[in-house]
Structure formats: C-alpha cells, structure tokens
C-alpha cells in the first residue's frame, strides 16, 4: 500500500481515528506522518498543566450548571467565561467574584475543597474579625428589637455604628 498523502513511498503508519463516533482510517509513510503531526499525536505540551486544566474545565463547562456562566464577563478586566475555559487562568482578582458559581465544581475537582483554611493576611484578619463582630451585633440587635428591649437595642446600635465606621 502506498502512502495516501504523497502516493510515492510505502505506507508504514496506519491510523484509526474516531472523532464524534466517525471512524476514519489513514495510511501514511513515515515522512508524511511526521509532517502531519500524526506520528506523535500528542503535541509536546499536551500534558502541560494549562492544557490539562483547560480540557477539564471544558468538560465541566458542558454541564447544565455551568452554562449559566456562558455569557458572563468580568466587569473589571473584560475576561469572559470562554477566556477562563480556554486559558484556565483568571484575568484579574475580580474574576473570582464574577465566575464564583462556575468555579465551585472546578475547585472541588482540583483541590477536593472550595474553602481556604490556611493563612490570612494580618490586616485582612483584622478586617475579617471586625466583619464577623458586626454580623454578630446585627443579629443581637434584631433580637433585642423583637424582644422590644429598646434601651439595650439603642446601645447595640451605637456600638454597631462605631464598628462600621472603623471597618
């Protein structure tokens, strides 16, 4: 059998490709196979982290839950969901908020988790604890109002205002 590409040299490489259930056969000589990149069907960077990741993200994007993100784009940097899938990279820190819902399955699959439990920036920690205090105060305030304990509620409200100003 002669190579079906050049028709000159004997075909020594025989490929069967199945793409979307369509079977195609190819018979090529070594030279043409190399030229067509068929000899090494996987390009050199096929196993690079971004390549693998983008493949995985593409799979996830086919799921119904992810499709809601299709038309999203980041208001800060203009990065689209498509960009995120293609590059498996974020455009800016706000992308994390823009695509938050779509990211959850990705983080679960990558890390087995979607919540950070490690280091927090020191100044962030202060902010975080203030915010948590504010939330706790708000709850307490609501309860006092429900109990019609207005005097205590007023004190709590002042405390809350002061904290919110600081934060």
């Amino acid at each position, binding site marked *: 059998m002669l190579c079906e590409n050049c028709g000159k040299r004997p075909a020594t490489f025989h490929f069967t490709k199945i793409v979307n259930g369509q079977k195609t056969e190819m018979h090529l000589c070594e030279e043409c196979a190399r030229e067509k990149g068929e000899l090494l069907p996987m390009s050199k960077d096929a196993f690079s982290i971004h390549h693998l990741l983008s493949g995985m993200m593409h799979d996830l994007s086919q799921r119904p839950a992810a499709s809601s993100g299709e038309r999203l784009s980041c208001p800060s940097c203009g990065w689209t969901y498509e960009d995120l899938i293609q590059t498996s990279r974020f455009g800016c820190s706000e992308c994390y908020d823009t695509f938050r819902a779509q990211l959850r399955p990705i983080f679960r699959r990558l890390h087995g988790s979607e919540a950070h439990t490690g280091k*927090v920036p020191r100044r962030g920690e202060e902010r975080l604890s203030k915010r948590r205090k504010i939330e706790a105060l708000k709850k307490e305030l609501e309860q006092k109002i429900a109990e019609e304990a207005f005097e205590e509620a007023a004190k709590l409200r002042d405390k809350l205002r002061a904290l919110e100003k600081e934060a």
Partner: protein
Amino acid sequence: MGIETFLTRPLAPALERGGRDDDVVMSTRIRLARNIDGVPFELKMSDSDQKAVLKAFEHAQTRRPNDVPELILFRMRDLSPLVRAVLVEKHLISPDLMEKEGGAVVLSDDEMVSVMLNEEDHVRLQVFRPGLDLSGAYALSSRIDDWLEETIDWAFDETLGYKTSCPTNTGTGMRASVMMHLPGLVMAKRIQALIPAIQKVGLTVRGVYGEGSEAEGGVFQISNQVTLGLSEGEILENLEGIVRQVIEHERMSREMLKQSLGVALEDRIFRSLGTLRYARSLSSKEALTRLSDVLLGVYLGYIEGLSAKKLSALWVSIRPGFLQYTAGKSLDAGARDMARARLLREALR
C-alpha cells in the same frame, strides 16, 4: 552586588552547609504565589501594570525589617539570554520568567531567597534550604510575606484564600518541593511503583533533569498539588510524612543493592568515576548519570576523599548555560560536550 557573583558560583552559599537527611534530600523549597489587589493578572497586564508591581516591591524594600535578608533586584531586560539561562539552571528563576521582558528577580546574596516579579503571578517568593527543612523554609517565606503585606494589599478572598492567576494555586498559593536524589530506588526499579503511589495522596513527583518520566541523574522533586482546603501546616505535614518514607525506602534500597550486587555495584560506580576523570567528550545526560553513580559511591563509602558538596556543585556547573557563561562564549553541542569533559577531568583529578 552584581549579577556576576550569582553566575560564577554553581552552588548557592545557602545550600553549602549540609542539611538534615542530606544523603537523600538535596534541598527544600517553598514558593508562595501572591498578587496585588487591583492590578490585573499576567494575561491582562499592561506595561504600566508591570511597572506598578516593581514599584510596589521597591517601596516595600525601603521598610525592610532586620530579620529579612537584604534583597537585590535585577530586571530581566537588563540580563542577557545566557545570564537568564544560568539563573534557570540554578533554579533561581523559572523558565517562564526567562521570557518576560517586564519581569524581575530579587535575590538575597546567599541565594536563600529569590522573589520573582511579574511571572505567572505578580509575586512569587521562594525560599531555599539545604536538606529537608520544610518548616524552616516556610517560616522565612511567611515572614517575608508578612513584611510585604505591610505595604501591599494582596488579592485575597475570605472563602477562597489568596487569589492566583491559575486556579491550581488558589488558596494558600503555596508550593512546597523537596528535591531528592534517589539512585537506589531507580537502580532497584522501585521508582516506577513509588511514583503512582505518591500521586494518589495529592502530591506530584517529577524528574528534575531531562524531559518526561526519564529523570536524569536520579533527581526527583516531590511537591504538593493541593493548595485549597488544607492549611499550610497540614500541607507541609503531609509532604514531610511522605518524604520521610521515601528517604527510608531509598536508604534501604541502597543497602540492599550493596549487599545483593556487591562488586558489580562497586565496579559500576568506579567505572563512572573513571569516565568522569578521563573522558574527552561527555553529554549532559551521561555526565549526570555518572555523577549520580559517584555520589552514591561516596554515600556507600566506596569512594573516599571526594565531598558530596563538590559533586553537588558539579551538578550545576556542567549545565549548558553555566558552561557557556564560564567559557565566555556560545558553544555548540559538540564543543559543550568537550568543555564539560574538561571541567569534570580537572575537578576530579
């Protein structure tokens, strides 16, 4: 201090002192990935954004506390391609940073600290320690992170942690790596079983030299894969636990090989030493294989009068970039093989 100092010494002063378990562990590295809030990430950065990152770092430099070593900044665009290649060979910068004209590297004079600016993330700070020392390396990297954070707002999310350019680093942004010399496991053909086992517990293993699974010189790097959901302490504990087991397996393999192969192993090691002492042309791959044999010979007590430190330095000085920098000119592959053989001959005479 100019960049030349870093290019003429193959072994970092920080790695010269032997560390814990240094018969198997060559070095430990912690890398923290951080980004500056409000500045677009790598793929959306403009030139002025890149300048802003350098500026933010330079501003932090003016408030450096005493317990953070002095750091010197070098811009990529001021360094020739060959100089960048040598820095890659010394693992001080990544191959990625090498291509970034707007990038920079910041080094401490003993090379214990290397901060890459405008790589995949705005800031990638690395700390190197000799032998196995994950907690020591992390302590210093976290200290440097605290210092930078005094003047820089990191992109941080209360749920997801440190925001990085790639989701594989989100959370702690930490990659902890241990570089190990595993000639015993390679020779005993046990490495093939070990690699998939390590990968099952959320860690990765890769050969440090050479492409793909072929690890030239038996040097492997084990690092954490997961960065989200575990604290830094938990990640380091997991890694240390696995590394300790690999150390034990490697030591057992070496003893087993010594007993079962006897003179055949000794012969192989001395043939390698002979090759390094007398060959006239050596490829990088062969030189690494032979050096690995000789280093094993030193640890098994076959070879005396040669220090592991000296061999570790040769590991770097025979790399293509380093050879050419030392020669002061570019060398083609054939000339490099000859220069490599000459260097080894002189060093091991």
